[in-house]
């Protein structure tokens, strides 16, 4: 395995230092490092972050390989600076058995662009009725720790209680897609001024908040870890803040798109802005940013949701929900959080690497950039601004809501355990 | 030929030279009054007393002229002469050269036009296309026994085989000039102005100002400049 010296990197945005990478780990950090035969990577002006970890990625394989595959999705992840992604369970077949999660895990290892950690379904077929074999998935080669019916809410309170209790046996966590189903039947976008004007069925904030309120109380009651997927409203933030103040073991994530975009985008009726949960109001965006800054929301997760062109080039009502996000996440977080002085680069490292790795129990990921850590490193140039070009993306799909938008920053290099997956902005 | 009976007046120098920004009045109020009186008499003469005559003014200033002519005919004959208005916008052949325009009113007198002698009245006869549109519009309104044409000014440059039966004044012009008829009912005073046609000249601005927004809010509108 090659040895690398990364020269003049600003570790977590600090003063320039060199990083010596040897045998898949960080051997040394300091000034003017050198090693015989080492490849030199000039990182002058670049910020070094621990490799990013995504808690929420839809890789679509098996079942919808026309939208994304484990290979294409992990290439996109590497280009976005990620060294690990959690592959969501709503595939076809659903990842609700040891067999399917092991298949996905293996596909990830074969592709080699980043660690693929499968998420297991909470209920069989994500139908919300019977628990899936959570223990078998936990004990499989994939070592599943995060369970989610994402795309569907575990709306039955008894099933949710049982799942929360059951995963305690193997330190698992239930990641809830908080969406009260009856309140959101046929819902198309955030319920409010825009939905009233556009004549689209509203998706009330309370449909998310009611489930979060119930689940934090359940988690508190049974003493289990609960994770809230893609928090999107100011009210949800308030509930989570209250729950944490009471010592509830709840964690939460927010997506990059909910940190930057609001529901006025739906005015174009372009379904590239159709997503679940929906884009909310500008006030919600502000609340989410502050919650991420103060730690009420623990991490950023992309909810990368690829869809083929024909699923989006339609009337809004029949279009698929979801957006791709792996390749723009860091730029969006810089725009929404760093350039607004809400978060520094150390904060970004926590919210996009350490915290998600901790929640997902990935021991080899999200570790601090110090000697002895696995060499999972992202080198990021925050200075350039560029218009987002969907055609230049590594993902198989093109449904980015940021197309044409000017965003800062660019991932220059990604190292996965000492091996570059991206170098000079290009996949290796 | 009726229009042969009336020779154009005035030397060439009366016209405004190209480049002179100011439009020049070639007819004033009394000239217009005299011309209409003469046309009224000619109509009575040619239609043998004007018993079946219906005057139809083409929107906008043709309508004013038709009303004035009807008044003069009544003065002479001692009985009212039916008159009405005709909007030809929907029949124009140049609709697609400009944005769609507001419509004027088409109002026929109660007598209608069937078996009548319809005298179309307009302010300026130029290419003949407006008259062509009027003939088409008339065709959809009924079947007159005959159709005649009266205009205050004939400025030449016909593009269709159309001629006027009654002409107030023949006015030789170049294609680049504009002829603008002002009528007190629409424009606060009576006059016929001749001016250069450069798109944004002061003359055009002056003409726009003079038209006072009555009927032809846009100088490119149906009756603004001819």
């Amino acid at each position, binding site marked *: 395995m090659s040895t690398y010296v990364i020269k003049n990197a600003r570790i977590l945005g600090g003063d320039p230092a060199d990083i010596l990478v040897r045998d898949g780990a960080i051997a040394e950090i300091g000034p003017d490092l050198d090693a015989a035969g080492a490849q030199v990577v000039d990182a002058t002006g670049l910020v070094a972050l621990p490799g990013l970890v995504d808690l929420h990625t839809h890789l679509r394989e098996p079942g919808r390989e026309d939208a994304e595959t484990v290979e294409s999705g992990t290439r996109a992840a590497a280009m976005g600076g990620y060294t690990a992604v959690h592959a969501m369970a709503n595939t076809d077949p659903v990842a609700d058995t040891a067999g399917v999660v092991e298949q996905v895990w293996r596909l990830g290892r074969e592709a080699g662009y980043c660690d693929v950690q499968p998420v297991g379904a909470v209920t069989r077929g994500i139908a919300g009725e019977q628990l899936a074999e959570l223990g078998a998935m936990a004990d499989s080669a994939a070592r599943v720790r995060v369970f989610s019916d994402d795309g569907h809410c575990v709306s039955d309170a008894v099933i949710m209680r049982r799942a929360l209790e059951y995963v305690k046996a193997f330190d698992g966590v239930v990641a809830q897609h908080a969406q009260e189903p009856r309140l959101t039947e046929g819902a*198309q976008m955030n*319920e*409010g*001024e825009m*939905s*009233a*004007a*556009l*004549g*689209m*069925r*509203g998706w*009330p904030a309370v449909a998310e908040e009611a489930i979060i309120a119930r689940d934090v109380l359940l988690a508190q009651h049974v003493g289990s870890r609960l994770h809230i997927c893609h928090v999107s409203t100011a009210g949800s933030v308030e509930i989570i803040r209250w729950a944490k103040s009471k010592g509830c073991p709840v964690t939460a994530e927010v997506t990059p798109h909910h940190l930057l975009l609001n529901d006025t985008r739906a005015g*174009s*009726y*372009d379904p590239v802005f159709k997503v679940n949960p929906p884009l909310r109001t500008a006030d919600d965006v502000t609340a989410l940013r502050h919650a991420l800054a103060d730690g009420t929301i623990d991490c950023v997760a992309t909810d990368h949701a690829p869809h083929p062109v*024909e*699923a989006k*080039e*339609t*009337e*809004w*009502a*029949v279009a698929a929900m979801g957006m791709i996000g792996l390749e723009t996440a860091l730029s969006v977080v810089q725009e929404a959080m760093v350039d607004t002085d809400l978060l520094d680069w150390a904060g970004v490292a926590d919210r996009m690497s350490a915290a998600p790795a901790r929640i997902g129990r990935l021991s080899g990921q999200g570790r601090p950039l110090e000697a002895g850590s696995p060499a999972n490193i992202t080198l990021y140039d925050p200075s350039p601004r560029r218009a987002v070009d969907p055609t230049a993306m590594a993902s198989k799909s093109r449904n980015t809501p940021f197309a044409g938008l000017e965003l800062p920053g660019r991932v220059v290099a990604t190292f996965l355990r000492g091996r570059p997956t991206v170098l000079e902005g290009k996949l290796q | 030929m009726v229009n042969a009976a009336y020779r154009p007046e005035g030397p060439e120098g009366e016209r405004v030279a190209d480049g002179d920004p100011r439009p020049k009045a070639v007819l004033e109020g009394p000239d217009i009054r005299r011309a209409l009186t003469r046309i009224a008499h000619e109509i009575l003469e040619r239609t043998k007393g004007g018993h079946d005559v219906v005057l139809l003014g083409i929107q906008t200033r043709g309508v004013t002229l038709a009303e004035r002519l009807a008044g003069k005919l009544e003065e002479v004959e001692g009985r009212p002469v039916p008159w009405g208005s005709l*909007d030809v916008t*929907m*029949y124009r052949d140049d*609709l*697609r*050269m*400009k*944005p*769609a*325009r*507001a*419509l*004027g*009113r*088409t109002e026929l007198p109660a007598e209608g036009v069937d078996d009548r002698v319809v005298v179309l009245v307009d302010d300026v006869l130029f290419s003949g296309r407006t008259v062509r549109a009027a003939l*088409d519009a008339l065709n*959809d*309104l009924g079947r007159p026994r005959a159709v005649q044409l009266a205009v205050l000014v004939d400025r030449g440059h016909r593009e269709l085989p159309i001629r006027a039966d009654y002409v107030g004044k023949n006015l030789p012009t170049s294609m680049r000039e504009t002829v603008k008829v002002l009528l007190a009912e629409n424009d606060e005073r009576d006059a016929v102005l001749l001016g250069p046609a450069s798109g944004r000249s002061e003359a055009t601005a002056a003409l726009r100002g003079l038209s006072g927004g009555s009927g032809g809010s846009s100088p490119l509108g149906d009756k603004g400049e001819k």
Partner: protein
Amino acid sequence: MKRHLISAADLTKDDALLILDTAEELDRISGRSIKKLPTLRGRTVVNLFFEDSTRTRISFEAAAKRLSADVINFSAKGSSVSKGESLKDTALTLEAMGADGVVIRHSASGAPHRLANWVQGSVVNAGDGTHEHPTQALLDAFTMRRRLGGLEGRKVTIVGDVLHSRVARSNVLLLDTLGAEVTVVAPPTLLPVAIDTWPCEVSYDLDAVLPKSDVVMMLRVQHERMNASYFPTVREYSRRYGLDVARMNVLPEHAIVMHPGPMNRGVEIAAEVADSVRSTIVEQVANGVSARMAVLYLLLGGSEPAIGKEVSE
């Protein structure tokens, strides 16, 4: 410039008045024996109806034919990726046919907006989902203006299922543009949550509003709303929000009663009210042709549209 009529909000006051004035002149022509005008000869208008609506389609068809346009009727109930041809493919077909104007009726809100991005011609929204129906609002305004003289300061009360009504949305926007004062009356379940952001007053009490109304517009209420618990029973709805003879009698002398049709007699409107002299329901149908002729003429008659709004991607 490519302009469309997708929302009543696309119209400035000048636009709206131009349409109403044009409709007024065109309406006079509809009284003649020869009703046809040569204005749109050689232009192609496609009526693209993804949802059944014989009344609206016939109205647009008559309007286009009276202006001598070539009319192509295209009915395609239900469009989705799963059901075969997509809206985009239909748009490409229209392009190949060289449609100058596309009149679209669709069950999905925003479908006309999407279509406008994919075709060269002007798009006219003939009703999209629960969004808007701008030509209905124009013919309603035209009807009100004829009966009442003008709209400035007039009090218009719109009663019923505002939440799901494209007619209500377009009417509130257009009437506000034209200076009328609109009040919507409905059970709270049938109003959008953000109704306070609309340019109108809101009331739950029909009886309080009627004596001050110059116009009462009754919206159709659909039975399936009862099944979704928007109101308990049709009888209760009718008792609280229906226009019966007793309620009609408290209206001012000059007030008119409107309904966009089709009516549920005995539910939102009593038969005696629908057939009374105050009712403009039959006039509305006739006025629809004139209003739509005006829209088609002003969008397609000239070198470029004289009304409407551009659509951004």
